[in-house]
């Protein structure tokens, strides 16, 4: 028991003694983990928003007027069985007309043409791909199908969005990784300095016959504690910042949604904390491993 007390006491008095160095380490962990966690959260915001967009990707196949309802139903069933298709909706001429009236409400000239010739608005199949990337395959498979007037999709726009989404995803991961490595290096450096500051004490401990773990544990504990404190601050900071962003940035365009689901915050937040502690442990172990004062 006395050893446990001793080790706890040592870890804390060392933090007190090297307040400035320790503060530096905690801040370093805090900043790196804030950036790491912030990157993850921002990545999640981008993901949820692109998911919304991806949900909205449709291939539209206009159906000729002479096609019978039976033939449309058959085609719809067939298309729906394709691997790359998630769902198919049929929009009848009447529905399409209503849709067009809403869509062109602000354009009286177009509205007038539609109202005068309700027949020009065609019925269509709206096909939702499994993955937005699949749209081109669907377009190719549909082309030349009898009874279809024209197959349409927002091709280049979809490609650009996909590239953006994947690029951001990779960038965020690389950024989070680099920041994590920086956190470990900073903690390692701090522990290194703490050991250097106490090299006399360590030498004496070794001469007196302190076991290796007895000398090392306070440093490991100190490292993980610094990692934990930095991590808690980082998670708190991001959670508050995210909440404030949702509350304050109310005049954003409707299609941007800053809210992140709670499970994600809790899950990744815990992961960031764990990472902070691990960074502290790894940092201090690395430092202990290379330190000459601890060699026997």
């Amino acid at each position, binding site marked *: 028991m*006395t050893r446990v007390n001793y080790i706890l006491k040592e870890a804390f008095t060392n933090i007190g003694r090297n307040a400035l160095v320790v503060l530096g380490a905690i801040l370093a962990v805090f900043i790196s983990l804030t950036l790491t966690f912030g990157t993850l959260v921002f990545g999640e915001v981008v993901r949820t928003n692109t998911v919304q967009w991806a949900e909205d990707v449709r291939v539209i196949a206009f159906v000729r007027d002479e096609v019978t309802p039976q033939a449309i139903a058959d085609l719809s069933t067939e298309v729906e069985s394709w691997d790359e298709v998630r769902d198919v909706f049929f929009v009848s001429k009447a529905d399409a007309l209503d849709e067009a009236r809403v869509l062109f409400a602000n354009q009286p000239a177009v509205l007038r043409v539609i109202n005068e010739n309700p027949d020009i608005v065609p019925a269509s199949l709206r096909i939702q791909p499994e993955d937005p990337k699949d749209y081109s395959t669907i377009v190719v498979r549909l082309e030349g199908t009898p009874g279809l007037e024209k197959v349409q999709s927002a091709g280049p726009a979809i490609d650009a969005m996909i590239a953006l989404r994947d690029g951001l995803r990779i960038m965020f991961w690389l950024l989070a990784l680099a920041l994590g490595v920086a956190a470990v290096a900073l903690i390692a450096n701090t522990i290194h300095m703490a050991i250097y500051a106490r090299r006399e004490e360590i030498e*004496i401990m070794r001469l007196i*016959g*302190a076991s290796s773990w*007895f000398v090392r544990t306070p440093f490991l504990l100190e490292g993980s504690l610094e990692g934990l404190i930095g991590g808690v601050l980082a998670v708190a900071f991001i959670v508050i910042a995210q909440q404030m962003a949702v509350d304050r940035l109310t005049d954003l365009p409707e299609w941007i949604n800053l809210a992140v689901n709670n499970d994600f915050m809790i899950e990744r937040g815990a992961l960031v904390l764990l990472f902070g502690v691990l960074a502290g442990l790894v940092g201090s172990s690395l430092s202990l491993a290379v330190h000459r004062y601890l060699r*026997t």
Partner: protein
Amino acid sequence: MIRLENATKVYDGGVVAVKDITFDVNKGEFVFLVGPSGSGKSTLIRLIMREEQPTHGDVWVAGKHASRLPSWKVPHLRRSIGTVFQDYKLLPNKTVFENVAFAMEVTGKRPSVIRSQVPQVLKLVGLSAKSDRYPRQLSGGEQQRVSVARAFVNRPLILLADEPTGNLDPGTSVGIMRILDRINRTGTTVVMATHDHAIVDAMRRRVIQLDRGRVVRDEARGVYETVQEAPVAEPPPPPVVAEVEVEEVRSEETAPEPVTVPDDATAETAVVDEGDQA
């Protein structure tokens, strides 16, 4: 208790510190290692405490084959050895009491044991009144006495002292020697490296003389140099400061006995003329 067999230590770069050293030290002996700087005294001390391993040969300490001991067992070996250094090696941010207690904390002694043992040892070295002072508030002699107290508080089988009086004036040195002698009489084996002629000549204990890494003389009740006339031993200084009982001594044959420790002032008058600065 200590046995070296053909121990040779060659440092990186080819410097031969000690060469083919063989000797035995029995339990309860008091041995001086003497010789000029660079003769290998400190290397021998470091071999015994397994701070270094011999390049060739073997070292046994306290029944353990020290030179072959795996490094994870070294702490255990060190607990049977107390060490005193020329530069005291005290922790500046701990009080006298805490410095001595540190040696017990490190080896996992219970707080109640620490609270009872530390004052006893501080009494032995005559520092009971200064247990709350910090090292910087003490004289060199007092700091060295703290260091001796720390080395002895765990009642080691062996006490190693590397030039313990090297930074002290002759009078203060005598005070330290009294304490080492007292510790030796509790049955603790003492090995002390020194080049202090006066002390060696006054104590008349076993002397192992080194020269350029070799043993050139090993003599019971020796003096520092054979060519010199042995000076007359100084009269024993009268008991002044502390009367202490050393309890729980390791050795069976030594019953607890009252201990007298002279203070520095008294000791100084006793030997101040003895110091022949060679």
